[in-house]
């Protein structure tokens, strides 16, 4: 009976330490999940920065080559971007969308995978992958968007329908193309480029949700045509501009994305790039910050759990001690009939270890059940402890389960050691005389 109570103590101790740590681990996982939804963790975005310093390094082809030679850099993906209206049937986007040139390999390296439809295939032309927010940007041509209503995603028939990448600019009020230059001369309406939408990306990654992606070939054609149109419309001086209104120079990139082979090296590479004078940013920055917070939390939670396991350890020691007092006579008898000292020590040690191991094992089982329950009903709890939108409140990885069993076994061993030694040292004769 006393042994059962002691085991119960160990079970509670093991449970509390496991559950506390599992909360911390779940918190970690949630951070990671949230951040990886926002962007790929192994991608570093590099930009030349807005620095007016003439000596600041430029993001040119040479820089790109340098990057590709760096250790752990798997792929260098320059960002090529232009803005264009997209027309779909009788609908057109409310404003110019950002169109990026990426080929199939780049997309997969960056982790841009379609949640609807399919990904781009290598060598494919005339296709487009849409960011998750783009279907919400369409309004019937000639009408203006109703901002009082949240935008609804337009159903898009992937593969079968076509979309037009417009070269022309449109009048905001009427939706008619601007076809009159500054001298009042009519210019010929440019022919839009037709592409096939094949896939839609996740709308949780804000970095890509408002972008559309086309193969390089289409992109180059689009930029070319737009340049011609803009020159006709506005004269030569303005050229092509990027999203910040900066003039795009040939051979100079605004942004380059680097795919890193090992996620543990992201910070290292990022540092190295910053040292070269570029601006570098990665989702890992956030994660590192958040991990610091959660590590502190885990330490505190684990500490609370550890206290209860410590109490359990004292319980084991106490039980063993009592058991030795109770069985002093038995120990004496065993000694007299030839038990070696190690036999006696072993007997009590094994019992203590068994209490620890059994308590730990049952503790793991019970915590798994509790963890399961908490996870199924856990939405509310998650919000209370500050894990908003968490999918799991408690995560018990295998190492934690095994670790807890080993730990409580070791606790049993330690707290059983001194009582066992005491039993060993009992004098056989006085032990027998005890009634």
């Amino acid at each position: 009976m006393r042994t059962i109570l002691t085991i119960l103590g160990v079970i509670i101790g093991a449970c509390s330490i496991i559950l506390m740590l599992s909360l911390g681990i779940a918190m970690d996982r949630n951070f990671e999940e949230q951040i990886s939804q926002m962007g790929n963790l192994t991608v570093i975005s590099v930009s030349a920065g807005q620095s007016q310093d003439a000596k600041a390094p430029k993001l040119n082809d040479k820089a790109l080559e340098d990057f590709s030679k760096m250790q752990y850099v798997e792929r260098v993906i320059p960002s090529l971007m232009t803005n264009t209206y997209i027309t779909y049937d009788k609908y057109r986007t409310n404003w110019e969308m950002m169109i990026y040139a990426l080929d199939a390999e780049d997309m997969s390296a960056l982790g841009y995978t379609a949640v609807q439809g399919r990904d781009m295939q290598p060598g494919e032309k005339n296709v487009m992958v849409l960011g998750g927010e783009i279907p919400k940007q369409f309004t019937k041509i000639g009408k203006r968007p109703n901002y009082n209503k949240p935008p609804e995603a337009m159903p898009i028939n992937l593969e079968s329908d076509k979309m037009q990448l417009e070269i022309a600019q449109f009048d905001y009020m009427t939706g008619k193309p601007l076809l009159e230059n500054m001298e009042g001369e009519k210019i010929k309406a440019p022919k839009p480029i037709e592409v096939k939408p094949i896939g839609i990306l996740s709308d949780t990654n804000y970095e890509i949700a408002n972008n559309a992606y086309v193969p390089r070939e289409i992109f180059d054609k689009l930029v070319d045509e737009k340049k011609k149109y803009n020159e006709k419309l506005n004269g030569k001086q303005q050229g092509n501009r990027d999203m910040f209104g900066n003039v795009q120079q040939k051979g100079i990139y605004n942004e380059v994305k680097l795919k890193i082979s090992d996620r543990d090296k992201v910070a290292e590479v990022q540092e190295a790039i910053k040292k070269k004078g570029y601006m570098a940013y990665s989702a890992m920055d956030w994660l590192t910050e958040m991990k610091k917070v959660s590590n502190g939390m885990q330490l505190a939670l684990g500490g609370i759990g550890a206290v209860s396991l410590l109490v359990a350890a004292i319980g084991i020691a106490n039980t063993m001690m009592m058991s030795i007092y109770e069985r002093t006579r038995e120990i004496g008898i065993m000694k007299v009939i030839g038990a070696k000292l190690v036999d006696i020590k072993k007997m009590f040690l094994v019992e203590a270890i068994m209490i620890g191991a059994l308590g730990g094992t049952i503790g793991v089982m019970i915590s798994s059940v509790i963890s399961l329950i908490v996870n199924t009903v856990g939405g509310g709890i998650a919000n209370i402890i500050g894990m908003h939108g968490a999918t799991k409140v408690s995560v018990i990885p295998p190492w934690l389960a095994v670790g807890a069993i080993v730990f409580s076994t070791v606790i049993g061993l330690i707290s059983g050691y001194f009582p066992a030694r005491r039993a060993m040292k009992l004098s056989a004769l006085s032990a027998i005389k005890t009634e």
Partner: protein
Amino acid sequence: MGKEKIVALDHIDLEIEKGEICCLFGTSGSGKSTLLNMLAGLEKPTKGNIKIKNVSVEKLDEAELAVFRQKYIGFVFQSYNLIPSLTALENVALPLIFQGMPKKEREKRAKEMLEAVGLGERLRHKPKEMSGGQQQRVSIARAFVNRPKILFADEPTGNLDTHTTIEVMDMITRIAKEYNQTLIIVSHDPEIATYAHKIITIRDGNIYKIEKNTDHGKEITYEKQE
């Protein structure tokens, strides 16, 4: 309190032959139990020498004593000293466990021994489910299961009625003779003394007299000169 020097045994010179059945006889407080404990290596003399099979017992350390007891010595106590949580069979097999004998063999040996003491039907009973005489027989079986060279019995019949006493004593002496074992019995009961070859009477920590049981009655071989 407790600081007073008590002399339990004083200048004892005693030899016991192999195969002898020997009775340490005396009133309580005479020192006979202390002598037995010393002979068995449970207590150490402050001075002097105890030799069993040419081994100085008092010089062995705890670990060596454990092995020594395992090999040569069996014990029967007045209060049986069985382990209450174990069955008769397990109690008898216990010394063999400490010797590291495989389970099958030790159970076989223990069973044989229990049958020899007439408890073949009670292998699975716990001590509490048996009478005093039966418990003592279990403890005798346990003492003999090792085939010890020397059996020490400390008031083996002290808790038993007359009828059972005779039964138990018959059994102990029979088995001891069968295996040519040395038997040393401590008792204050003159009845027990009749089973012995040699009766050593202890008084006030000294050997008072040594008698031999012969066919013609008791023969005094030594008597302390007052």
